[in-house]
């Protein structure tokens, strides 16, 4: 909606904000050091509303936890929007000056009365109104989200519905106010910055824009395809249709991490050629025809990464990679050489200098500055630019910085793709725990005293009903598969909902159950909502 994707604020700002809506994020465990800044904000007096189907450890810091029905985020956001409009708490000056499409938006949220919103979300109308009023009347306010918003089949709608709230109230483009998607991986932001998106060149420049392409072609000396590429989810669909027969996987473990994993594995196994470049012998690497051992990005290699606050920072080699392991760029360079292109042996800084010349938002970031200034936040177009703590200040400029107004985006509620049925009557959602990470290949390397392994969290009432006990192994099935796993009885999870992490695929192959229904626009699968049933193991 606003162009380049990135958190609009700096971490520091949340220490000074007045109201926080933590929406679909368990930052206490998934982003612990960001949460330090958030807790400082709470200590400084900020009020927090946590919107999450689970009462997560993050939610326990909230003044109010709103445990909405899984997948009813758009309905909640639209209800909040309508209530803000109804109670006259909109920032009318901002709406008139900086946005467009308000009338249509107003109409679109009209059906979402407190009663309707309450019915869809399962939350009391008063609570929704309280959150809406707190957000709208705050001097400064932020909405933070993570995968609870984006790992849904309607992920983009979810995000847009939250952006609409910021536009209604003017909580964007000012110190202390903004929209904050917290990045799950250490360089998911940097990957996007560098053009690792099917439709973007580095610096969020469009593949389909001839001018942008021409700039890169001049430097790269090759022609760049004029059409958008396809993202991971579409790649798997293309594999299924036989259109993709070879894959080169760098630092990703799709054979463990994809939703509906049995299906994904079958597709990977059916490829003519699978090349895996990784630091671990992952399950994907085990399927590969060729494995290229890489060096550890943050400890054995030079380069940069970009954080959730758009801060570009240096990573450095501290130890020697073992055996034949090589830096990713050197492996790629070698492959290029075998294919007839000699790139020479550029250093990380050489590559970065090339990037600086091509990506305006990175233009002012030399290695020297990144070192001296503790990283820089983009956009930082020239050497005199201090970097940008927050984005979209232009919304508050008289001439909108020469841009057009920001559009409202009417969206409608659509629950999880997979509805609960008699056969699969229980919701399953997934997420992270504090001491572990993704499929566990890295975090499995140390002995955490607080690791409890994989377990299915169920409400005590559900456990009672199903006659299952703490620690009991059960059979968990979704329309796609079954796994055996132990039960952890958790009062913090509502009745009818279950939760597990996905850090121990070798113990519990949870993605056999998750749903690969995905958002056509974001390419993200609906990991957050599957329908399951729980059965006692007969031998038990």
């Amino acid at each position, binding site marked *: 909606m606003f162009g380049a994707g990135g958190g609009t604020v700096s*971490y*520091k700002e949340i220490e000074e904000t007045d109201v926080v809506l933590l929406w679909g994020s368990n930052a206490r465990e*998934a*982003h*612990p*050091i*960001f949460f*330090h800044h958030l*807790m400082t904000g709470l*200590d400084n007096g900020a009020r927090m509303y946590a919107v999450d189907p689970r009462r997560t450890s993050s939610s326990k*810091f909230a003044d109010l936890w709103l445990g909405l029905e899984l997948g009813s985020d758009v309905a909640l956001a639209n209800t909040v929007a309508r209530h803000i409009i109804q109670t006259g708490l909109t920032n009318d000056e*901002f709406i008139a*000056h*900086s946005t467009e499409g308000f009338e249509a938006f107003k109409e679109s949220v009209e059906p979402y009365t407190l009663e309707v919103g309450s019915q869809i979300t399962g939350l009391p109308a008063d609570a929704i109104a309280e959150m809406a009023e707190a957000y709208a009347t705050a001097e400064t306010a932020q909405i933070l989200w993570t995968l609870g918003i984006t790992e849904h089949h309607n992920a983009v709608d979810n995000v847009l519905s939250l952006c609409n709230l910021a536009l209604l109230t003017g909580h964007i483009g*000012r*110190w*202390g106010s903004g929209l904050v998607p*917290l*990045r*799950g*991986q*250490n360089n*998911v*932001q940097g990957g996007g910055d560098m053009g690792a998106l099917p439709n973007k060149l580095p610096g969020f420049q469009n593949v389909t824009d001839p001018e942008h392409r021409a700039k890169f072609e001049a430097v790269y000396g090759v022609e760049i395809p004029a059409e958008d590429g396809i993202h991971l989810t579409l790649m798997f669909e293309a594999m299924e249709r036989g259109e993709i027969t070879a894959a080169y996987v760098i630092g990703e473990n799709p054979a463990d991490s994809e939703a509906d994993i049995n299906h994904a594995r079958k597709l990977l196994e059916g490829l003519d050629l699978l090349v895996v470049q990784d630091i671990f012998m992952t399950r994907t690497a085990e399927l590969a025809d060729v494995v290229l051992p890489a060096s*550890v*990005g*943050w*400890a*054995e290699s030079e380069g940069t*990464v*970009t*954080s*959730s*606050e758009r*801060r570009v*920072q*240096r990573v*450095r*080699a*501290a*130890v*020697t990679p073992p055996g034949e392991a090589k830096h990713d760029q050197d492996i790629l360079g070698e492959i290029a050489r075998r294919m007839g292109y000699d790139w020479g042996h550029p250093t990380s800084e050489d590559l970065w200098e090339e990037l600086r010349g091509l990506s305006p938002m990175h233009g002012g970031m030399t290695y020297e500055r990144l070192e001296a200034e*503790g*990283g820089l936040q983009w956009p930082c177009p020239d050497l005199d630019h201090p970097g940008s703590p927050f984005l979209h*200040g232009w919304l*508050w*400029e*008289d001439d909108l910085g020469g841009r057009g107004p920001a559009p409202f985006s009417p969206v409608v509620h659509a629950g999880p793709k997979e509805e609960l049925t008699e056969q699969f009557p229980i919701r399953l959602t997934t997420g992270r725990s*504090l*001491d572990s*990470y993704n499929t566990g*290949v*890295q*975090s*499995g*390397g*140390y002995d*955490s*005293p*607080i690791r409890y392994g994989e377990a299915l969290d169920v409400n005590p009432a559900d456990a009672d009903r199903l006659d299952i006990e703490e620690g009991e192994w059960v059979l968990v099935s979704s329309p796609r598969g079954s796994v055996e796993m132990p039960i952890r009885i958790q009062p913090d999870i509502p009745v009818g909902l279950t939760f597990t992490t996905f850090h121990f695929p070798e113990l519990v192959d949870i993605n056999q159950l998750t749903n690969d229904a995905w958002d056509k626009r974001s390419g993200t699968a609906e990991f957050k909502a599957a329908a399951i049933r729980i059965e006692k193991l007969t031998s038990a």
Partner: protein
Amino acid sequence: MTISETPVAISTVTVSIDGADVTIPEGATLLDACTKAGVDTPTICYAENLTPVNACRVCVVEVENSRTLVPSCSREAEEGMVVQTDSERVRHSRKMVLEFLGSGTDLSQAPQLAPYMEHYGAEPDRYGPEPERMNEDVKVQDDLYIRDYDKCVLCYKCVEACGDDAQHTFAISMSGRGFGARISTEFDATLPDSACVYCGNCVAVCPTNALQFKTEFDLRAVDNWREEEQSVTRTVCSYCGVGCNLELHVQDDTIVKVTSPNDHSVTSGHLCIKGRFGWQYVQPTITTK
């Protein structure tokens, strides 16, 4: 339309440090003023990333018209203050604090205090044959860090880092009273049973090695901890997208400890369990056997 920007402090105050005028921003402490004046001040319980608790009292200075000495780490500088950092009273109290600590605590792994002990002429042995000591055994309860409270000077730093200065977990607190005060979990529960989430921020702020990473403890046990040979490389953590800066302490081409720079805006020196301990998959070449 108005755009609110970050407010910038501009007011300053001027104080006299040992006769020299020093100008510092309003809200700065006497310790800041001393540092700016180039005066070296011993500190134990002070850390730039924690709220001053002014408990150790080794940084005390003499302020004109103040009945007692004042802790420079926490005392806000006021316009016109006249401060002595090397008067007889200051030297006496600093010496006594170092002596008191040395007489009851194992300071063998707090080498930064040794020069001050010498400078102020501290003689921890002059309190007779058997002065009461901390007298605590080492607690080894997991593979990540150990607690050797015989080395504890009760500076509160770990409590603050575990508490509302950073982690907000509050797994440990000061307990007991007087000389019997100890840092403790509830009822001295073991760490794995406590609320501890192993962020290791307590270890990072400990000034006397009472809290020690297990890697260091094990290497010390085989006399192979060689801090002077270690390199420190700054990089960025690979877990999650927050962008925490890490300092990798490397000995024999092996990571042996991870810290974070106190002056970095993202972490202020604090990490989570993954950043602090999650490096162990990077292949080691060192041996602790």
